[in-house]
């Protein structure tokens, strides 16, 4: 199917009169119609309004390219908000364009609209007055916060008030800060009104599934209850280190929240390595080590998780992706039984792909909220770095 649908931007984005954006969009649709007699009208499909917050021209450019991929699976009206509160002179600029997808020959195009709004200086205060009338009535509104820490300024309050879903990416959050804690607090505050999802958490979903699968068999569940150590390895000197660090925290938070572990303390045992976290479980202490590892020939995608259970029959369950970034090897080593391993495909997920899945799901993820809550407690502990 991917080969049969080609996203085609309908010409270059054209400047639009900010006061008449809807009229500009109508003009765009008229120009997209095939038949001047109007016998075959272009059909517009729209399932949501996607607001995208960016803080730089580079980010706006990246997002512009991503939107074509997003609208292929989730036809929507996209509004990119590029805000420069410190810039002058104050004012707005806007552009409209459409992304059309060409399916099989003879079939109709499916087009989605994109509006880009740049707000400079004091004009940012009036952003909501432009954006809110442009949202498609009756359809859900998603806000994709494609920036660093999630700390929305007050002039976005009116927009947040009507937004049903906020999508962040903790891979973009700087490490060591309290951004995750702030996100957890905000998420708790708006629970029930706004659903918060995290692309970095979505990247972890296949890993969580792989881990969970080993314990679907009732005979293996006792090992889950006796877990005593978790080791998470990431590739040192990797451009994806920030992503993986946040993922390590979220994975830990997930295991702790699902298995009823209580956070006790953290300590830095090696200056060159991230902190170790300690939890209390029903069967004793669980130690979570995060390890930076040099990988020869690595390209930033190596990631490994190992769960060890104690007791009289210690077992080990490991999951690791190698330098090729495509294959995950899993292995269960249980005393008295042959090792059970397999190789599965798990490539690094592209941003557009993950975003599309989140847009389709559009439901509250309580597991994420729970995991994030644990992470907030972990990083707030005094010994943390």
């Amino acid at each position, binding site marked *: 199917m991917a080969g049969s649908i080609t996203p085609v931007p309908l010409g270059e984005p054209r400047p639009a009169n900010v006061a008449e954006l809807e009229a500009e969009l109508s003009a765009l649709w008229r120009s997209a119609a095939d038949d001047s007699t109007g016998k075959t*009208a272009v059909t517009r499909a729209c399932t949501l309004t996607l607001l995208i917050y960016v803080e730089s021209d580079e980010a706006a450019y990246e997002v512009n390219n991503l939107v074509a991929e997003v609208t292929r699976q989730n036809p929507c009206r996209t509004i990119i908000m590029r805000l420069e509160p410190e810039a002058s002179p104050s004012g707005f600029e806007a552009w409209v364009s459409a992304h059309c997808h060409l399916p099989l020959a003879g*079939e109709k195009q499916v087009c989605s609209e994109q509006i880009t709004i740049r707000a400079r200086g004091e004009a940012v205060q009036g952003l909501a007055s432009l954006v809110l009338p442009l949202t498609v009535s009756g359809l859900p509104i998603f806000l994709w916060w494609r920036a660093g820490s999630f700390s929305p300024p007050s002039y976005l309050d009116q927009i947040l008030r009507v937004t049903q879903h906020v999508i962040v990416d903790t891979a973009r959050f700087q490490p060591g800060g309290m951004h995750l804690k702030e996100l957890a607090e905000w998420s708790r505050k708006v629970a029930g009104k706004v659903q918060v999802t995290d692309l970095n958490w979505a990247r972890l979903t296949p890993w969580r599934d792989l881990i969970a*699968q080993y314990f679907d068999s009732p005979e293996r569940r006792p090992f889950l209850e006796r877990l005593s150590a978790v080791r998470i390895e990431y590739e040192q000197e990797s451009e994806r280190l920030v992503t993986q660090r946040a993922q390590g925290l979220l994975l830990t938070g997930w295991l702790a929240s*699902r298995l009823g572990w209580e956070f006790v303390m953290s300590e830095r045992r090696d200056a060159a390595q991230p902190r170790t976290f300690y939890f209390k479980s029903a069967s004793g202490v669980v130690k979570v080590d995060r390890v930076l590892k040099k990988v020869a020939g690595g390209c930033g995608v190596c990631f490994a998780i190992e769960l060890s259970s104690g007791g009289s029959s210690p077992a080990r369950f490991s999951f690791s992706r190698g330098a090729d970034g495509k294959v995950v090897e899993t292995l269960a080593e249980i005393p008295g039984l042959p090792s059970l391993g397999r190789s599965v495909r798990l490539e690094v997920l592209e941003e557009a792909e993950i975003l599309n899945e989140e847009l389709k799901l559009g439901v509250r993820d309580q597991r994420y909220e729970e995991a994030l809550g644990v992470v907030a407690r972990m990083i707030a502990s005094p010994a943390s770095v």
Partner: protein
Amino acid sequence: MAEATTLVNPLGEGIRIHRTPEPCVMVIFGASGDLTERKLGPALFYLSRERLLPAGFSVIGCARTPATNEDFRGKMGRAVKKYLNLSEGSDAFVESFGNGLFYISGDFGDPAAYGQLKSLLDRLDQERGTSGNRLFYLATPPSFFPVIVKHLGAVGLAEPKFPGKSWTRIIIEKPFGRSLASALELNRSVTEVFREEQIYRIDHYLGKETVQNLLVFRYANGIFEPFWNRRYIDHVQISVTEDLGVENRGSYYEEAGLVRDMIQNHVLQLLSLVAMEPPSTFEATSVRDEKAKVLRAMRPAPLDRIDEFCVRGQYAEGWVGGGKVPAYRAEPKVSPVSNTETFAAFKFYIDNWRWADVPFYLRSGKRLAKRVSEISIQFRRVPHLLFRGAGTDGIEPNVLALHIQPNEGISLKFCAKLPGSTMQIRPVLMEFRYGESFGAPPPTAYETLLLDCMLGDATLFNRSDAVDLSWELMEPILDHWREQRGEGLTFYPAGTWGPAEADALIERDGRSWHGL
């Protein structure tokens, strides 16, 4: 090993992707055959590679051909490479898949082979954590079904190993008999050992997406159901057409014919989905109950006026896709005097409150102009024409078309006024294509079906009553045609839309086939 203290896997809860089935073993009887090599093996490999199968998933191939585990693994490895056109770097996946494959050779009637099978299943439960869940796939000719099923029952493999905690299921492929009598006999032999809810009768023509799209369209939208009845609908057409011929399936087709191959199962299934009453839940039992009610209400074609209700045809030589193709009778393994139908068209009525007097026109055939599956619901014309004049001759009845293949979607034809000062009315089409607007590739039929069976979702699988009812409807027609031999068999050039008699079938009622 200690019993788990938690009944559910806490790590598995709330993972928002397609859940993998519970750990299980699939036993394929007839594993040395073509179906395993071309379809089952590649489908299972794909599911394994894409993380859709549980950890420890295992396959036991059973066949008469002597072979070892390594032989079977090697054969499956070569098969997946051939039929899936794997890229470089796939060896790790192939090896990983192969580690879960095992083989038992033996005669299907030999009790010792089933004892061996039982021992191996128990060993895999222990070593690979398959938890006592078993899926038996009968990829053998139907003549072997009774003996296999009998022996499975004799060694206790038909019942779940851990009652209430594990499951045992059996998959059988169509055709489910050649006639009502053979279908009943087949069903009797299987249900003597397995309960109905354990039996999954595969019909892979219709994908799950299609069935679900139809049900969602009807029951997730409040606006359509009020019109979905005889007050507003003039007639329904269901067309399932192919441009391919019988290719290398001549000997099968000579025995089956178009009605057994397509109408008795796939087309009637589409009809039941369109005509059924709303089920109380989306679960398989509720949906299948309503589908069976439709089949039960269908009025049999009157045999004394059969030509008014049924047309059969056979393709002659012609042109398809720019190439000349031979007639059916000239195909390999087809008798030069064959009377097997490759085309059929029917008019049926459903005798219930919703559909009384609404004709359902069905047509299906091979070597037609193109490959299309479509349901067209034509609404009644407006009772009174407000608009008269030269520009108003474009007023046509509304048609809601549910496109199944090749491009799944929905379209609605309605009238609109052309821009301008004069009254010019033309029909316009409002379309929605699933694949285009939500551009994700759908999984293949076997992958979906195997996963569904492991997950215990019987939505796509046929129940015995639906199989029997569809035979009751079609068998008298097939018997009548058999008695008539070639009389009444019409011929059509390959690459056209079938015999003229099929057009007459619907035009006699003042209607016409919807353009495809």
